[in-house]
């Protein structure tokens, strides 16, 4: 596997980059959905994310990346119980992946050769404490979507099949990308994503030239390029780590809570997930920017990503829901 293109070398697309960084600061935000045309850097950003994320500490042989031996699931046969540092898992869920591969199944190899009943963990187990990335998420088959909805909600994967009864933690940040021209996403799945961003190709020629230049430098002069942007990535990583420490101490004035509620009421978003995500993301942003108290500016910055996919569709609004959120944010927050 080639080293992915570095995250900090991605030109523009600030909203997408910000959304991804914030889920790294607070994984509880619940995932990012990236919608946009082809060739806008969606896949590049997700693959770059893996190299950017701070490493995690995990039991070496644990199939679900548990941090302590006591947290390893009981069905796992642990070999080495050493605690090792490993990169945050970013697991690809390919379209057309079978249910077996996603949730795990009976270990067919051991069943055949030794006649033993053992569980072979699937992608959900490997993604625990990390990221699960679905490219072309809008083309995912319905039965896999149903599975994901359930697991993303409960944070636990339960397998009851072929005589197995297995459960293991599956807490992951869901990252989806897709091209809206190819199909819509079911609202239930849409709602599970904490943030959604729309990406577009830059219209500015200078910016486009810069994208190609960096890509070219990455391919031709790999070492020098990585030396520079590797250091940039490290800076972002350190800021993420610092932000994680700061996050619990970010103060939230009561006035901002009512701002959140007022915003969501004005936008008519369904359920309370909107408010919760808005607040959580704004706090992550404050922590990332090094602020100690939440301000209206944080809400303003984050509202389009956190809320635009939770609105009911307005058939007469052509500007897109992002613009609608921005307009209402201006109205509510003066």
């Amino acid at each position, binding site marked *: 596997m*080639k080293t992915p293109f570095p995250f900090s070398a991605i030109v523009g697309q600030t909203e997408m980059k910000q959304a991804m960084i914030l889920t790294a600061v607070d994984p509880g935000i619940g995932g990012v959905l990236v919608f946009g045309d082809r060739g806008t850097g969606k896949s590049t950003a997700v693959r770059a994310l893996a190299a950017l994320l701070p490493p995690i500490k995990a039991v070496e042989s644990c199939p679900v990346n548990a941090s302590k031996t006591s947290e390893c699931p009981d069905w796992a046969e642990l070999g080495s119980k050493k605690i090792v540092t490993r990169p945050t898992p970013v697991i690809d869920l390919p379209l057309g992946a079978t249910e077996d591969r996603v949730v795990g199944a009976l270990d067919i190899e051991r069943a*055949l050769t030794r006649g033993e009943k053992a569980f072979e963990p699937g992608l959900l187990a490997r993604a625990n404490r990390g990221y699960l990335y679905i*490219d072309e998420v809008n083309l995912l088959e319905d039965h896999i979507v149903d599975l994901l909805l359930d697991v993303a909600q409960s944070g636990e994967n339960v397998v009851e099949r*072929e005589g197995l009864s297995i459960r293991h933690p599956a807490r992951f940040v869901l990252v989806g990308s897709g091209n809206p021209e190819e199909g819509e996403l079911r609202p239930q799945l849409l709602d599970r994503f904490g943030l959604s961003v729309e990406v577009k*190709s830059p219209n500015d020629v200078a910016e*486009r030239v810069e994208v190609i230049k960096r890509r*070219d430098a990455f391919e031709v002069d790999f070492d020098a390029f990585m030396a520079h942007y590797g250091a940039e990535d490290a800076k972002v990583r350190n800021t993420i780590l610092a932000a994680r420490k700061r996050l619990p101490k970010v103060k939230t004035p009561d006035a901002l809570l009512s701002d959140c509620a007022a915003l969501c009421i004005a936008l008519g978003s369904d359920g309370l997930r909107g408010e919760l995500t808005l607040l959580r993301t704004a706090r992550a942003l404050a922590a990332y920017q090094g602020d100690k108290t939440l301000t209206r500016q944080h809400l303003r910055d984050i509202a389009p990503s956190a809320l635009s996919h939770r609105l009911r569709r307005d058939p007469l609004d052509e500007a897109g829901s992002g613009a609608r959120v921005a307009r209402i944010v201006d109205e509510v927050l003066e």
Partner: protein
Amino acid sequence: MSTPSTSWDRAALALRLLCVQGADLTGAVIRMRAGPDRDRVLAQLKPLGMRKIHPTITDDQLFGGLDLAATLSASQVIENKSFFHSKCNALLTMAERCGPDLAAKLAQQLDAGDGHLIVALDEGAEPDEHAPAALVERFALCIDPEGRMPAGWPDMAQNPQPLDPATVTTTVADIETLTTLAAVFGIDSLRAPSLALRVARAHAALHGRTAVSPDDLNAAAELAFPHRATRVPQDPDTAEEPPAPPEDTPDEDGAGDSDSFELPEGDMLVEAVKALLPPDLLAGLVPAGTTRAQTGGGAGQKRKGNRRGRPLPSRPGRLDGRARIDLVATLRAAAPWQPLRRQAVPTSASVPAGTHLHIRPSDIRLKRYQEQSDRLLIFAVDASGSAAMSRLNEAKGAVELLLGQAYAARDHVALIAFRGTEAELLLPPTRSLVQTKRRLASLPGGGGTPLAAGMQQAALLAGQSRAKGLTPTVVMLTDGRANIALDGSANRAAAQADAEKMAGLMTAQNIAALVIDMSNRPQEPLRALSARLNAPYIALPRANAERLTGAVSAALEA
């Protein structure tokens, strides 16, 4: 600048580049039907040692997995090797049949950058039959030669020993040229200029140059851009105003400032690429930036059903009385578990050891088929006072006639009437002639023209029916004199504005439409509206039911 090249010369050049620098260029799509010409083209790729992939390849074959037959017979685990376990050159046959899931998996392999090369053979005969866009987008080259192969092809001059493309230097100006050129042709994706740069570098290396020359840029532009272009750049000299793209296309901003792009290389590159654009683009048939999935023509969209159509790979499921079991796949799924299950079930007199197959519900595999979905014609009929009552009767007659045809063509029909302040769904989607006649007879007339409300109702119904697997086409019969706005107020300007907004919305939802002008003189605003809808506009001032039916059928089959 090189001499003008034929499409076969370019094909030869592309093939040569693939052979020399294949992995760097990630791949190519070859648009040719099977035949001796294509065989000779493919023969050029022989040095690459292509391995074939077919569109229904399973995950096991693609990514490796347990080889069941071998494992069972050898009683030890034997695994298939993954197709992509090492650097590989793959030939995807029948690429136009390749589904989005396989395309996504292959794209993922290309993105990983392990030096794989994929050549897709696209045999698509119909305009909407083509290799998946997600894949073609990632390929640098498109080989689409026209006409017969010239004698003596490929006529390639013997080149000096090619250099390593990594040693070829490019300047910022080269990058700017290719990026700007892509922008001029309305190519939004940034993969295009990036891939073109690789082509330029490979071309330079092929000719033994250590720096990219204008010739290389020219070749790169000719090979990488024409099939991606979404817009024809306008000559600044010709005073003729270009047909304005519909205002609601996503890249409106990009289209607006196309004049501000300045090419350092002058217009020669633009001309070179422009000469190679596909003819339907030149004819302005494809509006900038839009990729309409389908228009009203032909049969409905494909969808996955479970009873009829072309077979798809089976998948696990539960027998619910509607689906059909795939017996062979089910047995195959059950086979490896037999030793285990025999152990679990105690042998008894009624079940002697080793004579029974143990099949569990999880083994069940269901057959799946892909079928063409049924088409739904939604008639939105203007029943206002301005549309004369007689016209309404003609419309009613046309609906009945079309329904008769639709019955043969397995189309469904729905009827919406709008008058006064609102639109009403008079006839939900149906194929029943009797029901239609009864409902049509009760269609009242008179009142204002709430055009926007009618369109809204039609769009709503189209969306709902699409969710049910139908492929909707909206047929609007109106005189276009909208005078009732969506909120019910009698305001001509607001009504017109609302109608245009609804048109934009319907275009955004890719709803195919057809506008029939039934007023005595053709209405210009209605023609503009139909342009916004991307819909054919038919003026039928003195239409009777037969002519109306004929026009609709002709437009739908077009």
